[in-house]
Structures are given as structure tokens and as C-alpha cells.
């Protein structure tokens, strides 16, 4: 860790750009500063390339509509654009904010610094109506082109009922379809080269290979992909907007549905941020239960990926085997959480209930059962020559490029970069577990697969440690903001009942502040950036999902390859549309 040796980044910025850079205290301790709008590009460029131990990754880029805040911060802003950068050398985030006034909603693009900023800036334009001057294609990304208004603006209604029942007249249908027509010119594409006309092939939004409602427009020369344009937003449900409508407590089930294969892992990412805001420390038993279930969900998610990846390259049976295993894991999840894919089981300050009797037996059975199965899949899938021929050398990316594009998780590790947030920035007590960070060298589809398979073994190792060393004690914090308080006390003690009553109805009152809770989720780094203005609902809920930047890399990974490779790349990417679109 060189973070101690290098200069504090905010300090460095101040030294270089003058004292008008206002710092801000945040609940998560991420260095935060406000930079003048005119110089934002320059300063971000410096942070990326100029500063020592630079911030190479654009972790997230979003905005906040500040106009309805109950408690304003020091800087007067109508709309704030928030840049999160990450430095692997420093192992640290930095948060750069720039204030925009309602009459001048525009800021310079940083797509020239980070290509990954492209989609993020489009999203901010789509959601807030903030322009990025110099952006190559500032177009809506999540909402349909026909949408009126910018949904994450505070005055935009959250509920469809506010807008009346949806009706699709033939004219409207016609118009909507016309808007969906792909025009290569808009994307800077040629319709043909000197000696050939390109085929533009529309894959999705209904296509078995896209794992959901994703549309990819391929520019083909024969079967060779000249370029492609992924189009997302079909799965957009306004999860971030919902965060502004639900109480801190009742938002938990919505997180389940973001990466719907990750189950409780979503709860964990969200609650990590909430607990930072509230200043809650989860008791050891609660932490270990959380880790155990999260790792089980990592296995569950990877099993889905494993089977479907094999199926993407044409192998039919493994998906049935891995789903069987997943079913076994789900049985355990069901026994503990009461539900399967949407467990909604972590709570502010702990988990919903203690583990049921006999839980350890279930886990021990699984720990015995699972490794031979993994070994079998290795033989059936990973070692199969056709499988290797289809995946090796496909979708290759280097570590530097991956960082540039915001890649995290197994994809980044497959480039030979040993980086796991569980190890590097431990949360929920991960520092107490022994496990390895699997890596590979080539950064291709095969390596991603190998890394993920090994991750399942490591997860199992963690689970085994959890089972063997499950601490006693409370499963939930006794902090007043832990919601809801322990139930059996609620049923008899008036003070607990009162706390319960208010926290489940009006909701817990979260201290004003902001926090980023980022975890190593199934598909990469999943971060919840929450802004509280001291109310019972979040003022702004930003969900930074790993799938979003990964999907943005698709053209990069499959340019010059063939159509089947596209599917291999998609399969190896391990994305979930809900995780992209939110």
C-alpha cells in the first residue's frame, strides 16, 4: 500500500489548482471535494495521469438533483455531477463533485480521458438532463427515446399511476418502432466499405444468447463483426428512483432485484452504505452469517453463469447439472431466508432472524457434496477441447485497458491482476477469513471461466470457515437505527416496540451525510452511493453495478471476431440485465 507515502489527493489538487476546492466530510471517509465546473476536465486528467499513484479507474459517474434537499451542504448547487475514481496503487477512492446551476446544466465530457465515461454521461443526460459538451453521442440510454422528462429529477413522478394508464395506439406503436430503427450513421458507422455492404444484424432484445432483454446491433462483414452497438434499458425499472420513495428499511427488497442472481449480496452492498451512514457496527455473528450467505450466493450466481456459459457455446447438459447444484444451495437459502432469488434477508444492523436449528448440517452436506461436482464440470467443460477452442484467445483484454474501462471482478482478475475488494478493502469481517484470489493470465473468455470456477472453490472454503467458527451472540446490532429491533423484545417491551413502530412505519431517520458502500459482488464491484438529507428516505440512491461498464466494453471485446464469439464473450462476461439497467 503506497497510500501513506503518496500525497493526499485532495491536498495535491489544492496545491495545484488553488484553494477554491472545497472539501467535504462524508460518513464513508472517502476523500471528497468540490471542483469548479470549468476545470473539472483538467483536474480529472491530472488525477488520472498526472498525480503519483494515479486514479486510473473511473469507478462511477453520476449526478444528484439537489434542489429539494432538506439539509443543504456547504456548496450551493442545483445539480451536482459526482465522479468516483479509484486508484489501485493507493487502494483508495476519491469523490470529485462539481456544482451546476439549473440555468447552465452542462459540463465538459471526459470521454476522451476515460472511454468508460461514455455510457455514464449518457445516463446522467438521460436521467437528469445534464449535457456533456463534446460527448460523441449524447443520447438517451436507459429510457426510450420518446420519453418526456428526466426521471431522476426530483419533480419527475416515481409511480406510473401518477401518469395514468399506459395506452399504446397504433400511431404510437408506429412512432415507437420508428424510434427503435437503427441508423448506423447516428453511431458514426458506415453502411458499407469499398468492397462490401455490411449486414446490420439486430440481436435481441429477445434472443436466447443475450440472457435477458438486451439489444446488440452488429455491423457484419459476412460473419465477421466490424463493430457493434449494445443497446440497454429494456430492463430499466427505476431502482434508483425507488430508493427515493421507499424508507431506508423498505428499500431492501428492491436491492434483491438489481443483480437478481446475487441475492443477499445486493442487500449487503446497500446495507454497507446504510450502516456507514448510521454508524452501526454489525455484531460478529451477524457479520459471519452475512459472509456465509453472500459466499453461498456467489456460488449460486457462478453456477448459473457456468451452466449458461456452456450452453452459450452449445453445450447442452452442464446447465442442468449446475442448476441442480444451485437448487441445493437454494434449499439452504430457503431454509434460512424463506425465499430463493429475492431473499430480502439482511437488515440494517444485521440479519432478519437467527439461523434456524440444523443449519450447520445442511452446510456441511453441501461442503461435502459440491467439490466433486466442480471436478466433474472441469472434466466436462473446461477441459473439453471444443470449449477451449471457442473461448481461448477470445475477448482478450489487457489489465490496463480493463482498468481504463472500469472492469472489476473476475474479468479483471483474469487479466492477471490480483485484486479482490474482500481482501483489499475488507468489509463485514472478510479480513478474518483465509482464502485466495484466483487469477489467470490472458484475460480471455477461458481465463474468466477458470477464475470463476476457482472462486467457487474459494467461496466454499470461506463457507466452511463460517460453519466451523460461527460466533455466538446477537445476530443484529442493538443500535437504535438497526431496523427493526430484535423481534422477541418488541413483543414484550414498550421501548423496543416504540423503536420498532417508528422504524417500520415512518422509517428510521438516517443522519444526514453520504456514504459509498462497495463490495466484491458476484460480477464485480457493486457500490451503493447513498445521500441522506436526514430523512426517513434516501435523498439519492446511486447503484454502481459491475455489469454496466462490462457491457459497455462489448464492442471492444468482440470487434473483428465472429458472431459466435460474441456469444462466448457475452457468456464469459457474466452480466445480468437487471444489474445493467437497474
Amino acid at each position: 500500500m503506497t497510500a501513506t507515502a503518496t500525497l493526499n489527493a485532495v491536498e495535491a489538487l489544492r496545491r495545484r489548482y488553488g484553494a477554491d476546492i472545497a472539501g467535504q466530510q462524508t460518513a464513508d471517509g472517502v476523500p471528497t471535494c468540490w471542483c469548479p465546473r470549468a476545470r473539472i476536465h483538467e483536474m480529472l486528467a491530472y488525477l488520472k495521469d498526472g498525480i503519483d499513484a494515479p486514479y486510473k479507474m473511473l469507478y462511477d459517474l453520476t449526478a444528484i438533483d439537489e434542489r429539494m434537499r432538506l439539509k443543504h451542504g456547504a456548496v450551493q448547487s442545483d445539480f451536482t455531477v459526482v465522479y468516483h475514481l479509484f486508484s489501485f496503487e493507493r487502494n483508495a477512492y476519491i469523490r470529485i463533485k462539481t456544482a451546476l446551476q439549473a440555468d447552465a446544466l452542462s459540463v465538459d465530457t471526459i470521454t476522451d480521458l476515460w472511454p468508460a465515461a461514455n455510457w455514464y454521461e449518457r445516463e446522467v443526460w438521460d436521467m437528469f438532463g445534464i449535457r456533456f459538451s463534446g460527448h460523441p453521442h449524447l443520447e438517451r440510454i436507459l429510457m426510450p427515446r420518446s420519453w418526456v422528462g428526466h426521471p431522476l429529477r426530483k419533480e419527475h413522478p416515481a409511480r406510473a399511476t401518477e401518469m395514468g394508464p399506459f395506452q399504446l395506439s397504433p400511431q404510437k406503436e408506429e412512432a415507437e418502432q420508428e424510434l427503435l430503427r437503427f441508423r448506423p450513421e447516428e453511431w458514426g458507422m458506415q453502411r458499407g466499405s469499398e468492397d462490401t455492404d455490411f449486414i446490420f444484424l439486430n440481436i435481441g432484445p429477445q434472443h436466447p444468447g443475450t440472457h435477458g432483454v438486451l439489444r446488440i446491433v452488429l455491423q457484419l462483414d459476412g460473419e465477421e463483426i466490424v463493430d457493434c452497438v449494445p443497446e440497454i434499458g429494456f430492463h430499466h425499472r427505476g431502482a434508483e428512483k425507488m430508493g427515493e420513495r421507499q424508507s431506508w428499511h423498505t428499500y431492501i427488497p428492491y436491492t434483491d432485484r438489481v443483480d437478481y442472481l446475487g441475492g443477499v449480496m445486493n442487500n449487503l452492498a446497500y446495507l454497507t452504505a446504510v450502516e456507514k451512514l448510521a454508524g452501526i457496527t454489525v455484531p460478529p455473528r451477524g457479520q459471519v452469517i452475512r459472509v456465509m450467505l453472500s459466499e453461498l450466493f456467489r456460488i449460486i450466481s457462478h453456477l448459473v453463469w457456468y451452466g449458461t456459459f456452456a450452453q452459450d457455446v452449445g453445450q447442452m447438459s452442464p446447465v442442468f447439472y449446475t442448476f441442480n447444484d444451485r437448487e441445493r444451495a437454494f434449499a439452504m437459502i430457503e431454509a434460512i431466508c424463506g425465499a430463493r432469488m429475492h431473499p430480502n434477508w439482511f437488515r440494517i444492523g444485521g440479519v432478519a432472524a437467527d439461523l434456524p436449528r440444523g443449519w450447520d448440517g445442511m452446510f456441511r452436506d453441501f461442503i461435502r457434496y459440491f467439490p466433486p461436482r466442480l471436478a466433474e464440470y472441469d472434466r466436462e467443460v473446461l477441459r473439453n477441447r471444443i470449449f477451449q477452442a471457442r473461448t481461448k484467445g477470445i475477448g482478450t483484454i489487457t489489465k490496463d485497458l480493463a482498468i481504463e474501462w472500469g472492469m472489476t471482478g473476475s474479468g479483471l482478475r483474469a487479466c492477471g491482476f490480483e485484486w479482490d475488494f474482500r481482501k483489499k478493502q475488507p468489509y463485514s469481517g472478510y479480513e478474518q477469513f483465509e482464502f485466495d484470489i484466483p487469477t489467470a493470465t490472458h484475460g480471455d473468455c477461458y481465463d474468466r471461466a477458470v477464475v470463476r470456477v476457482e472462486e467457487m472453490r474459494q467461496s466454499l472454503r470461506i463457507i466452511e470457515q463460517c460453519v466451523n467458527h460461527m460466533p455466538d451472540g446477537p445476530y443484529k446490532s442493538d443500535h437504535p437505527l438497526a431496523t427493526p429491533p430484535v423481534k422477541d423484545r418488541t413483543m414484550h417491551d414498550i421501548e423496543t416496540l416504540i423503536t420498532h413502530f417508528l422504524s417500520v412505519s415512518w422509517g428510521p431517520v438516517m443522519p444526514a451525510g453520504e456514504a459509498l458502500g462497495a463490495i466484491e459482488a458476484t460480477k464485480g464491484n457493486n457500490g451503493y452511493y447513498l445521500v441522506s438529507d436526514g430523512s426517513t428516505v434516501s435523498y439519492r440512491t446511486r447503484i454502481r453495478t459491475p455489469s454496466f461498464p462490462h457491457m459497455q466494453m462489448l464492442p471492444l471485446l468482440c470487434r473483428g471476431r465472429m458472431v459466435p464469439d460474441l456469444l462466448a464473450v457475452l457468456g464469459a462476461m457474466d452480466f445480468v440485465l437487471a444489474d445493467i439497467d437497474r
Partner: protein
Amino acid sequence: MTSPYPIVAIIGILVVALTLAAGLIWVERRLLALWQDRYGPNRVGPFGLLQVLADMIKIFFKEDWIPPFADKVVFIVAPAVIVVTVLMSFAVLPIAPGIIISDLNVGLLFVLGMSSLGVYSVVLAGWSSDNKYALLGGLRAAAQMMSYEVFMGLALMGVVLLAGSFNLTEIVAAQRHVWFVVPQFLGFILFLIAGVAETRRLPFDLPEAESELIAGFHSEYSGMKFGMFFVGEYLGVILISCLITILFFGGWLGPVLPPVVWFLIKMMFFICFFILLRAALPRPRFDQLMSWGWKVMLPLALANLLVTGAVALAWRS
């Protein structure tokens, strides 16, 4: 040839082949399930056997839809071609002594010829659908057929050399002492691979490649026309299984049991093998398939032919 026997044989073999093909729907689904820890269709009738019937009824009653943008005549002809060409091939197959429709002396060539015609079905279907996926499927099919037809024929020449005849009955007869799979093991493997490619089944189902091209050449097909592709595919599987049996495994030859039974057992074994392939193997990429075909299979087939020819010459001389 003057007796009414051929008519009976034609009808008999037609009925058996089509029934088998239809039955394969059920067999395949049950077998896939077996290898995937499931049951497969087991609700309709005993062991789910009537599932076939249900599927057929369903397919018959489906809307016979022709997309408005399709080339209608070709679109309709295409599925018929595949059924006809495959069924034609059955005419020369010796199932058992006396059970054959037409014991052509160039039977093997006839089969190869017919299967070459079969590709037209796929190409035409892909073309006439006027759909990019179908077109890509058709293109792939044409390329794939072209590459694998070549060494498929060459792989069989070893058998012909050993048997000294193109007549399938005689080829079977020539295996009375030893099945050709022994001397022609390489040829058998090559033919097997080519056969799978010929029937466009996993791992060589590139023209339809569900996870890539959705259904490839028959994306736009539905109802009974789709059913014909379906039946055509299963007929192809049966045909290739029969050919393997005839060419490499001594056809009806075998002790104790009646010849027909032997033939059916062997044929069923290979059908199951086809299904196992589908269950287990991933799909290579189209260019990989081509390069293996041209760069590996073809040289091997030629080598096999060379060695067999040399050995045969040496043997005779």
C-alpha cells in the same frame, strides 16, 4: 421386381422410417433428460409415449404461416426437399436380407448423391426466408456441407475398396468375417463426424445454432413446414445410423437373433450415440469447423484411402 413386393417394402420402410423419426422426438427428449438428471416427457400416455402424438397434433393445427416478405414458392418447397431426399436414400438401404426396396449396384453413390441434394433444402430455406439469421444459417449450411461432403465420400472409399462394390448389400456381405470398423477405424471415425455434420446436429448444428442464430435457416418456419425440417433431421439421423451399421458394423449380421433385430439394435445404438453427442458436446465455431474439415479431416481421409488402397493392392497382389 415384378412382384408386388416392392410396393409392400416401400410402404413398410416408409412407415417404419417415419414412425421411427417421429418416435425419435420422444426418444431424444427422454434420453437427453436421462443424461441431465431429469425425466423428460412422462405425462402424456405411458412413459410419456403419446407426447409424440400430442406434438404432432399440435404441429398440424398450428397456423401455416408464411412471412409476407418470404419467397413463397421456394419457402414451401424447401422443407419438402429435405424429407424427399432423405427418404429417397432409404430406398437403397439393405435392412436385412430381402428387405430392401432397390438393391442398386451404385447404392452408396446414390446415398451420397441424395445427401448432397439435401443441402439445397437448407440453403433454399435460408434464402427464401429473407431473414438475416436464416440467411446466415443457410450460408453456414452450404459451407459446412461443401466441406464435409468431400471427405465423407472419401472416408467411405476405403470400405468400397475392401468390399469391392458400391452395392450396399454386397458391402454387408463382405463383412461376414470382420466388420469394416476394424480395418477402417479411421474411416469410421471420419464418416461419423461427417455424418453428424451432414445431419446438422450438435456439435455441428451451426446452421441453426440456437444460442447464436436463434434457429438459423428455419427461424421463420412454423407449423407443419417446421415439422418437416424436424422430421427431416430425425430421418437424417436414422439414415446415417443405418449407413454406419451397414458400412462399418456388418449391417444385419449377427448371431442368434433375426437379422432385422440385429440391424435395428445396431442402428439404435448409433442413434443413441447421436443423441449423446448432442447432450454432451459444445459447438465449435463455423470457421473452426471448416478448417478442421479441410485441414484435418480431408488429409486424413485421403491418407486412409491411400493406405487402404495400398494394403488392398498388396493383398490382392
